């Protein structure tokens, strides 16, 4: 008898879920909205500024080519290397060396952003970096300097209903 009561209560609990909203969202038609601008770092206080860690953005005017980001990544995943760009003449960068990032190796830890003392390398919240071959994942410094694309509408957020949770 107790058996039947417990079985019925599990059936009722399962059927309750049928009348609530679905939690998933349909990916290419709806995209997830991430607030904010991305992860940044303030070298004077030594504390980072909260944000999502996605693709990097490089400010070419501020980068002096000191290679501290390369030295930091040598022990993590060796994804950054310096590249010579002869036709970019910037006053602070005498040898015209800028970082290039290989996204097939990057683990998005953000320690390169922490290492830069000139506020030249930050991270944005763009995470859709898929491609069909390995070579196009190697982002040159000019490609890194392009600001991120705005996420196409419609975007969804996690919302809390009365007793269910859904993306809307």
């Amino acid at each position, binding site marked *: 008898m*107790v*058996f039947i009561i*417990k*079985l019925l*209560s*599990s059936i*009722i*609990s*399962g059927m*309750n*879920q049928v009348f609530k909203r679905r*939690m*998933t969202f349909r990916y290419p038609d709806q995209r997830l909205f991430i607030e904010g601008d991305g*992860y940044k770092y303030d070298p004077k*206080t*030594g*504390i*980072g*500024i*909260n*944000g*999502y*860690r996605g693709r990097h953005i490089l400010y070419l005017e501020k980068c002096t080519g000191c290679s501290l980001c390369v030295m*930091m990544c*040598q*022990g*993590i*995943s060796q994804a950054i290397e310096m590249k010579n760009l002869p036709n970019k003449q910037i006053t602070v960068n005498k040898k015209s060396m800028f970082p290039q990032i290989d996204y097939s190796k990057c*683990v*998005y*830890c*953000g*320690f390169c952003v*922490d290492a830069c003392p000139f506020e030249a390398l930050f991270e944005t919240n763009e995470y859709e970096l898929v491609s069909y071959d390995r070579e196009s994942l190697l982002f040159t410094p000019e490609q890194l300097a392009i600001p991120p694309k705005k996420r196409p509408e419609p975007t969804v957020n*996690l919302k*809390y209903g009365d*007793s269910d*949770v859904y993306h809307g």
Partner: protein
Amino acid sequence: MSKLSLSVGPQHPGSGHMRIILTLSGDYIIEAIPDPGYVHRGEEKLAEYRNYIQNIPHLERPVVLDATGAIFPYVLAVEDLMNIIVPERAQFIRVIMAELNRIISHLYYMAIYGIFMGHSTMFMWPVGDREVFIDLANTIAGQRVTYAFLVPGGVRNDMPEKVKEQADKACNYFEKRLIEYEHIFMNNPLFEKRTKGVGILPKQDAIRLGVVGPTLRASGIKSDVRKDDTYSIYNQLDFEIPVSNACDSWSRAWIHMEEMRQSMSIIKQCLKRIPTGPVKLNLKQIKVPPGESYSRVEAARGSLSYYLISDGGKVPYRVRIMTPSFRNLITIPYIMKGVMLADMPPTYWGIDYWPVEADR
């Protein structure tokens, strides 16, 4: 009856990244020998070639679900050697992240328990609810799974203001969901018949074999590193430790559910009491003097400990990691005796064995 030797090997939907060699007599298991080592990557040796900050993304990868639980003891050991004191706000944020990771890891445990029982609804519900907590961790730390958030000296960035409100909503929603889990899974008569009395580990055996974590608490011993050997600010918080005297698989699942409730209450207390202030010491460089130190933390699966020897250089001399899954591996030949073949995957998953963590 004649004996059948079966290898529940790495290519099997009911085993992890390891192999268990079973000897069956009919449908009962007589002998079970685990064969780990398929995922060994030499993490401890690789840690000797990276400096103290570069080790952080490296050492949190084996324990991928519970990343804060893997880095917390390392950071405590380094700070112990450097003799620095971390600001209060950073300690509260560390505890919030550790308890969030505990909930995330336990939800994954319930999901895989369901799928090993053949209950596909119990797989989908915890994994869907885990999204709520991963979103919360994303708001605080910047990534969803492996955060690299704790550094020697504090945490990397500050929490935004909306975390309090989001955490309140998440905890309210999840407390209602735990009641639903009890109706559909824990109190389901078929689940109770399958797991009560199966995979028994008596109290004396648990003490003799040196078991840690929820497995130890399910055998009737009230022991938790957060209360026995307090670290960080746990002595200012008010929580209980669930213990059960029935040493079977059902009580191990029940302890995981109760621990999730306690974790939510800890998070609410921390968010009420958190002071303002800086979150990181502004250290010019991480210079660790020679010496050795040992630190221990209650991760989601048990007690994780680090033994760090430094000789004053840039890289550590020796990092020794002791994970809870490796400590619990010794129980597999003991709890599998007399269990039927159909109950083998739930029994070994019940002790929360994660092969990648055990092999490092």
